[in-house]
């Protein structure tokens, strides 16, 4: 029997018009999100603090964080598809919550707090690159220099120079650097995974003792000595099977140090043509997050198998305790970098150095993200005339956004010097994640009320038809994300385990109170000055009536 099939009918006709482009590759956007939740730099560094909650189940906490951050990803991807704007959080909050709230929340998170991230990046560069590389090559003097205040400050200068260079190079150059670092860095990771996978626990113990003696002059059984050093500080007998529900939840704020950032690039989507396509934006962020979660799970299981769970916690505890006033020295005096440990499984210092150098590409592919989002937020605020016009200035020849770069680099230098030379100031840096979480909280609240606050824009968006039990999906995911973020903000503020509790140290509270007051002051001054110039900042976001 013959059958006929009707050709699908054309659902629209297009004509020649500017801007009709084909779909962009999700891979590049994925790369940006993947670098933002950096498994090696932020991930390994952040997880070195989880020894403080030994009863928490780390793998379970990683998976739970992945699930909760997915709601954040869904919320942000929806916001991008409704309003793709350069400046992301600033643009959404100012247009939904109001210009003043948007400015204060976004500028404190994306401008003032990013100054604090310069020394954090620099410290990671020291712990994962300069120090282990120098120790491995036998340059002990260089290694100890980089852990000194001068060394930390020099590392801050290197980070600032590199980041400025990347921004000067532009996104095209940076995208190429990211790709290069991604493929080589992944190669390094595969080698590291292979070494941990195909080596036994006994081989690791033996290798650790060998290199601890060779590179750090440790005598005897350094492996056991490390466990004993941690036990003196109160960390002992940690097993992978430990599971306390509350303790596992309390690991989430530690893991947020890296897993909270797949939405980091959302500030750039105003420049991306076709960003209104929800699925592509979501895919880039989602896979950036979940590929990292999967890789973390692999690393955790390999540490369990080859390194030993108790030892991993002990090594971190011994190192961080040794930095406390009066803390006992650890047998291996450098940060317990899992990459370095994996390299020790091959008894060749040149190979070990090469592995550390290649894994250093995880830093250099990622470091450019430090100020990129900040520049976009500063641009958006300058276009709104809340900040002076020169803040959005770009040099004619090299296209360098020198206005916003000055606003980032000069304060970062001051903050870096404080970090390097004033030890009591360092507690403030622990709050660097919390303040950005506050900014995100503002955004997800804005997202949750979007269908009512900007009903017209919402109704006209591709997400308007998505509902759960009659409630807009953006409201549901926004509320879940808000609860998650609020939980962490409360914990950071009150729980002493993170070192950020206001109850034990009021310095961070004072510091951040000042930054919020400065942001409020800038906005109020801008309103007054602009009014005198005949400009009403309130009308920036007012919607013109349609009828």
């Amino acid at each position, binding site marked *: 029997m013959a059958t006929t099939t009707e050709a699908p*009918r*054309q*659902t*629209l*006709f*297009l*004509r*020649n*018009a*500017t*801007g*009709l*482009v*084909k*779909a*962009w*590759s999700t*891979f*590049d*956007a994925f*790369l940006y999100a993947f670098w933002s939740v950096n498994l090696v730099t932020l991930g390994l560094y952040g997880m070195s603090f989880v020894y403080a909650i030994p009863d928490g189940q780390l793998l379970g906490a990683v998976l739970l964080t992945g699930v909760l951050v997915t709601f954040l990803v869904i919320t942000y991807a929806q916001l991008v598809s409704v*309003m793709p704007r*350069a400046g992301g959080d600033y643009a959404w909050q100012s*247009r939904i919550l109001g210009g003043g709230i948007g400015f204060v929340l976004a500028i404190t998170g994306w401008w003032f707090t990013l100054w604090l991230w310069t020394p954090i990046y620099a410290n990671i560069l020291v712990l994962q690159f300069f120090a282990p590389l120098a120790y491995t090559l036998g340059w002990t003097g260089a290694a100890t220099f980089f852990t000194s205040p001068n060394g930390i400050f020099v590392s801050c200068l290197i980070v600032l120079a590199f980041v400025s260079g990347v921004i000067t190079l*532009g*996104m*095209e150059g940076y*995208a190429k650097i990211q790709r290069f670092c991604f493929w080589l860095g992944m190669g390094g990771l595969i080698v590291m995974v292979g070494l941990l996978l195909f080596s036994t626990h006994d081989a690791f113990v033996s290798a650790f003792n060998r290199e601890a003696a060779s590179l750090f002059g440790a005598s005897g059984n350094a492996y056991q000595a490390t466990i004993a050093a941690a036990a003196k500080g109160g960390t002992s007998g940690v097993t992978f099977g430990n599971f306390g529900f509350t303790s596992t939840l309390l690991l989430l704020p530690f893991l947020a140090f890296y897993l909270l950032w797949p939405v980091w690039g959302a500030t*750039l989507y*105003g*420049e*991306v*043509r*076709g*960003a*209104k396509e929800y699925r592509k934006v979501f895919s*880039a962020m989602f896979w950036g997050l979940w590929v990292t979660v999967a890789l973390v799970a692999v690393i955790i299981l390999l540490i369990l198998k080859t390194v030993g769970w108790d030892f991993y916690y002990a090594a971190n505890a011994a190192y961080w305790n040794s930095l406390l006033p009066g803390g006992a020295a650890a047998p291996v005096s450098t940060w317990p970098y899992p990459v370095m440990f994996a390299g020790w499984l091959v008894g060749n210092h040149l190979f070990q150095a090469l592995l550390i150098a290649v894994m250093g590409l995880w830093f250099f592919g990622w470091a450019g993200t430090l100020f990129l989002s900040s520049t976009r937020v500063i*641009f958006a605020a300058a*276009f*709104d*005339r809340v900040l002076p*016009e020169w803040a*959005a200035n770009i040099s*004619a020849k090299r296209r360098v956004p020198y206005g916003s770069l000055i606003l980032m680099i000069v304060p970062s230098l001051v903050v870096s010097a404080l970090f390097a030379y004033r030890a009591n100031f360092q507690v403030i840096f622990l709050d660097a994640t919390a303040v950005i979480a506050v900014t995100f909280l503002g955004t997800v609240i804005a997202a949750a009320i979007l269908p009512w606050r900007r009903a017209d*824009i919402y109704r*006209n*968006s591709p997400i308007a*038809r998505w509902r759960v039990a009659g409630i807009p999906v953006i409201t549901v995911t926004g509320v879940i994300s808000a609860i998650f973020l609020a939980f962490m903000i409360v914990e950071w503020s009150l729980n002493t385990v993170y070192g950020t509790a206001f109850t034990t140290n009021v310095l961070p509270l004072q510091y951040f109170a000042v930054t919020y007051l400065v942001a409020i002051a800038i906005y109020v001054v801008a309103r007054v000055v602009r009014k005198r*110039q*005949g*400009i009403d900042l309130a*009308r*920036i*976001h*007012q*919607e*013109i*009536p*349609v*009828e």
Partner: protein
Amino acid sequence: MRVFYATDLHGSEVCWRKFLNAAKFYNADVLICGGDMTGKAMIPIVEDGDSYELTLSGVSQRVGRDQVAEVESQVQRKGYYPVRMTSAQVAELEKDPAKVQTLFTEQMCKTVERWMQMAQEKLKDSKVRVFVAPGNDDEMEIDDVIANAPRVELAEGRMIDIGGYEMISSGWANPTPWHTYREAPEEELARRMEPMLRDIKEMSRAIFNFHPPPYGTSLDEAPALDENLKPLHGGRVLRHVGSTAVRDAIDKYQPMLSLHGHIHEGKGIARMGKTLAINPGSAYEEGMLLASIIELDQKRGVKNYQLVNG
């Protein structure tokens, strides 16, 4: 004098209505629409017995006769042209690009004509002057429609005195990968500008209203594309795509103000010597009217400016 400038409405009826209402909302004396008024797509609303079927933003829907006007309004909001037709007519159009083009022109002119009537109704008791200059995406046929409108002045290709300020306008752009309707090589763009530039008596009080932004500024950065029109590096890599002829004209003549559009992502301002160049960007698909308000002062020229999201 307060000037309200918006551009790249691309057929969005909501944006056009907001544009007309901006005069009262912002107390503006002059409204300028910078070009690319017309839509990029036609949506067939296919008759099927007592109901109609259409696909909008990838979602197919079937509506009754009483709901057709509402969905047509939804389509217009997005800047598309809703056209009621039968399945047979759709099939006929699929086979014949010339017929599609004719229908597009018809829809465009009909819509612009309706917009002009709207301007007449909304602004009949107002002293506000309204200028429209087409852009590279606008077909030539709409010029006559605008020229015949009683309440709107066609700005294309001439010098106009606006309360003592001289404005010259052109919607022609340097070549794009899409081969649109008003494109020309840079040399020809420069030749088109020459007679208008000669008409200007005082550059310190002049306004350039050129659709493409000046090359090499922050106003002309668009996503870099490969040869298949696919954005490179996730759409994040930007390249300058503005006009060198426009750039040269600004650099040489230094007008008080230069108004641009064309690159929706290029929202911002650029100081080019004595010239303030503005591209307010465009978010027409959201029904949001990105625009700029510029205060002109007889002594100081541009007194201040503001980019707004109306």
